């Protein structure tokens, strides 16, 4: 069994949601907000529901889509926004550009609805992440599997979802370590391709454990 020179240090994270000063009541205002909000805010609204509503696998792919559907009743735009997959992007800037394009194109095509007030306002928020080491680490696949099994949802979210912001949306902490420290590139890729939109955090972890077990049998 491969032993890594650099161990995987399990970390836990707690998240505070900082409420920004921007909000939107219309699609035109949503566009303005998208153009000017922080990168952290774009990330928060495209990913936070995967943490807080992870038990639901329908209807909540991102906050922009959800608000467009529930507050402005524009199913067509909501479906376009919901179809965005953050794994297709290599930067928040590119993701922001596409979000803005979708809303802008819609506003140009349907100017009559651009200024109609939605039922509720959309509030731009962002996460403040506070991390603390859990005090255990892994140097091989067995230890890694054991650590993964005992992680809380927040710690799992931190390593599997939130890490994508740090890693420029290319990968996640688990895949990054498996590939760079244990040389298990195929396993790392398979884990990175687990669909975070249609899985709950628990089912994503279950799939990950099954992939790891398959790898362990090869040894």
């Amino acid at each position, binding site marked *: 069994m491969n032993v890594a020179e650099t161990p995987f240090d399990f970390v*836990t994270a*707690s*998240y*505070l*949601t*900082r*409420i920004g*000063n921007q*909000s939107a009541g219309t699609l035109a205002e949503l566009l303005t907000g998208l153009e000017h909000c922080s990168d952290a805010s774009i990330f928060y609204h495209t990913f936070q529901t995967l943490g*807080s*509503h*992870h*038990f*639901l696998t329908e*209807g909540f792919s991102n906050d922009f889509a959800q608000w467009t559907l*529930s507050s402005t009743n524009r199913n067509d735009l909501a479906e376009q926004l919901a179809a965005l997959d953050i794994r297709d992007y290599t930067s928040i800037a590119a993701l922001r550009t596409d979000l803005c394009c979708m809303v802008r194109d819609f506003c140009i095509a349907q100017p009559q609805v651009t200024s109609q007030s939605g039922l*509720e*306002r959309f*509030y731009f*928020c962002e996460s*403040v992440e*506070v991390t*603390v*080491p*859990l*005090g255990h680490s892994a140097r091989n696949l067995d230890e890694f599997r054991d650590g993964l099994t*005992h*992680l*809380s*949802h*927040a*710690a799992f979210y931190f390593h599997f979802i939130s890490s994508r912001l740090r890693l420029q949306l290319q990968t996640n902490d688990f895949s990054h370590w498996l590939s760079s420290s244990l040389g298990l590139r195929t396993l790392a890729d398979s884990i990175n391709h687990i669909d975070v939109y249609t899985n709950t955090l628990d089912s994503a972890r279950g799939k990950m454990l099954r992939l790891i077990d398959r790898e362990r049998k090869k040894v």
Partner: protein
Amino acid sequence: MSEVLLASRIPLENYADVVGAGEIEELRALAKPLRGRSMEMINSTAVGGGVAEILNRLVPLAEELDLSIRWDVMRGAEEFFDVTKSFHNALHGEPYQAKRKDFDIFLSYNEQNRATLPLDAEFMVIHDPQPAALIDGRPPGSNHWVWRCHIDLSHPNRAVWEFLEKFVSRYDGAMFSSPEFSRQLPISQYLFYPAIDPLSEKNCPLDSEFVQQVLHRYQIDPQRPILTQISRFDRLKDPVGVIRAYRIVKRYFDCQLVLAGGSASDDPESALVLKEVVRAADRDPDIKILELPAWAPLEVNALQRASTVVVQKSLREGFGLTVSEALWKKKPVVASAVGGIPTQIIHKHTGLLAHSVEGTAYQIRFLLSHPEIAAKLGEHGHEHVKENFLITQKLKRYLALFLMLDRRI
């Protein structure tokens, strides 16, 4: 001094069965850098209402993590609580004619409390408007002060808010139950959900025999649908509106209505509202109006568990923790789309939202007609509370906040 002494203590390990061992390990890891640092919570009542209930559970849990935490209640006479109740309603958007005398009374009691409360902990958490002016007693350049607002400030009375804003702006941060409640302030604002304790007497699992005994005691028929609203007798909870909704449902279903609530020591209006509710019930034998003592948690628990549908038809709401209590018990909930309720009730996923008496009645009828949908909403609601609105999550947010203030992230 008015430090609150807490009676019951539940070992932190007991929560592992509910939230998982990983969550407990995580709490310990987050608390470790804060050991030996002092924290003080201040609010205006030790009994009744959501804030006191949360602090009653949160403070002992923080002590379980070896944190040095105390909870103080500010002191005030009737005239102070009359004023703060008016402020509370005005901040919720109710009509109010600002009077200079009211502001003077408010400031005078805050000044008196500044003289008796320690206010020297490293992390000071001031809850709600009543003690907001204690910030005047902040020692120069030392500890961290944050203001936790539990009420809906989306449409506040301008005069009252402008008065309070002068104090709030001097805190290091403010926490609100919904982004909608936040204001344009020069300080950072955070989203902070209230929480329930799954192991408290109000939420712990109960024997069905005990539940039946409670129903028998209050002459509630277990064979017929039971609609329940648990809340203080407060006009903003619209108990009379619930009776009107029940009367519509009653045309289609032979149901009963339970309106159960206590009173808080800082709410002088509740006796008047109770009279209005009794009058509106008009001696209907299927409407049970139960004035429970402030600590009848087991009875509340039993009534919620026995309910077919739980209702929360508030006109304004800070957060509405009774909704989380019902969801935790996997109950289908019909609630108004006000305040923090839409955060708990994701419409058609974790419950049903309504905007009127008629809408409330319609959603109740829908759930009584479709028990399988009601059960699914209850299941999802339970998961939603587990992830977001349990006391362990709340404690975690406080730990993160203190760490963040300390590290100045």
